[in-house]
């Protein structure tokens, strides 16, 4: 109950602070660039392919690839936003002393953690859903392409933000804001690198590289989640391209559906980080 009051306050804060306005402006800019870029590129591709027999097929593949790229950028944007909005959620309140006044009220420490997490999770989920729908609408109007299973992809992208949110919440319970932020960006970058190593390893048939990628994914599953999401955004034509030719790797994307154990692991990872955040926060002196 009290956690919900904190969540409500967190939502109010997100709405009232300039941060949200900044995110909205940035996002509108991103969508505009995506739309304009798509129109311009598509015009060029059409001009080049005019007359050639594979024109229709080529344009369809191009449209799907561009939409995939758009989602890839959106996923990165959402991940960074998750870190940005929550990085000082706990440590900031500890530094300022706000937590003293807050915890003087009849609520438990876990209410503070859960409430803030819930508040930010709602903001992030809403952001990913709205932005994904906008992106799909733009892509559809420009290219006539619709991803085959967008809902599954959006769900997985929301999960990406929740993984980062939980990690950021955990870091905030024992690290200063700056250290937490630097640590999260390092981890986020590591996940991206791990994903690249794994994708390349698969193409080069290097087990070592694949294993390194998997270990990194276990450490921070944000990139592997994105690659799972990407599967649902690609039409059969692109998936087939990746499967048939060994050199036909699409970077940042996966041609196989997510494995159930990986999904279960990620959900447990997110809840585990949140639980650990509560445990650490419960024990520390404030």
């Amino acid at each position, binding site marked *: 109950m*009290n956690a919900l*009051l904190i969540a409500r*306050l967190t939502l109010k*804060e997100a709405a*009232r*602070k300039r941060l949200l306005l900044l995110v909205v402006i940035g996002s509108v800019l991103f969508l505009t660039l995506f739309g304009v870029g798509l129109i311009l590129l598509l015009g060029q591709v059409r001009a080049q392919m005019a007359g050639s027999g594979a024109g229709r097929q080529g344009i369809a593949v191009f449209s799907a690839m561009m939409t995939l790229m758009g989602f890839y950028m959106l996923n990165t944007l959402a991940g960074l936003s998750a870190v940005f909005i929550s990085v000082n959620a706990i440590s900031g309140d500890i530094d*300022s*002393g*706000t937590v*003293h*006044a*807050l*915890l*003087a*009220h*009849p*609520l*438990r420490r876990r209410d503070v953690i859960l409430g803030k997490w819930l508040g930010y999770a709602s903001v992030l989920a809403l952001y990913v859903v709205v932005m994904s729908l906008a992106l799909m609408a733009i892509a559809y109007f420009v290219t006539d392409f619709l991803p085959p299973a967008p809902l599954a992809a959006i769900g997985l992208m929301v999960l990406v933000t929740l993984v980062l949110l939980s990690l950021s919440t955990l870091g905030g319970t024992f690290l200063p804001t700056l250290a937490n932020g630097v640590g999260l960006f390092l981890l986020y970058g590591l996940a991206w690198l791990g994903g690249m190593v794994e994708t390349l390893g698969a193409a080069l048939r290097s087990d070592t590289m694949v294993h390194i990628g998997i270990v990194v994914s276990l450490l921070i599953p944000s990139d592997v989640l994105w690659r799972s999401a990407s599967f649902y955004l690609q039409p059969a034509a692109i998936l087939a391209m990746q499967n048939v030719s060994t050199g036909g790797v699409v970077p940042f994307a996966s041609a196989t559906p997510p494995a159930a154990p990986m999904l279960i692991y990620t959900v447990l990872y997110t809840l585990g980080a949140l639980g650990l955040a509560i445990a650490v926060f419960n*024990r520390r*002196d*404030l």
Partner: protein
Amino acid sequence: MTVIATQQLRKVYGNGKVALESLSLEVGRAEVFGFLGPNGAGKTTAIKILMGLVAPTAGSVKVFGLPPGDPAVKGRLGFLPEHFRFYDWLTGRELLDFSGRLAGLDAARRRRRVDETLRLVGLAEAADVHIRGYSKGMQQRIGLAQALLHEPELVLLDEPTSALDPLGRREVRDIIRRLKGEGVTVFLNSHLLSEVELVCDEVAIVDRGRVVRSGPLAALVAGERELRVLVDHVTDEFRARLEGLGSVLTASDTEVTLAVADGEAAPLVAQAAVELGVQLHALVPAHRRLEDIFVQAIEGEAG
């Protein structure tokens, strides 16, 4: 009834700093308890332990007979931290409303209490201004308001007047007296002796993490009296006689201040002056002020 009870409370922080050595306290219902000590004596650590914000290294602590930090305990108390800070994008009214929600007040009572406490702390006019725009003193006032909003049985105030001007200090004193009148227990952390002297009934003087003097303020102050003796010239003989009557606190050529045990000393001093031919200009008995007791207690501890 005991509201706060601690026994041999000890706190050593992670960096090895001993904040509390061994603190044993008892605060009864409807008492205004002054917790007095120099900066760094462990006052804030003590109040944080009472609030469940800091876990003691050893010893026991009970508030309303329960472990501190329990929501059931926190529902019955109000707390003003030393430097009150809250989400500064809220207005004063919004802060109090949120505070009231957390305390579980229903909408009608919340609205009534928000208005009442805003008036009480003199912020009715600034109620709809963002806390960001508040001065330090106003922030402290809104902090006091959120501590009193839900009509708690116990109020813990950590240096409540540190950010206030003399007028604000007086208002806070009046509020404390009013709380006392309503039967509210007040735990007041302060290094301002005058403040404690004016409002408290019980006092504990703490230094380097332990209580060095404690008791009812009246008893602490009444137990010792001071006698100022003003004469034309303090002769060696006269001074020797005075030393037999009490301990000399300060002495100059024409004035001696004595700490004496009771009121019997004054006539004896007058008699000595007459016998020794010293001209007595004035003989002023006074209660010893808490400040002197405080200084003596801290210095005694150091020496």
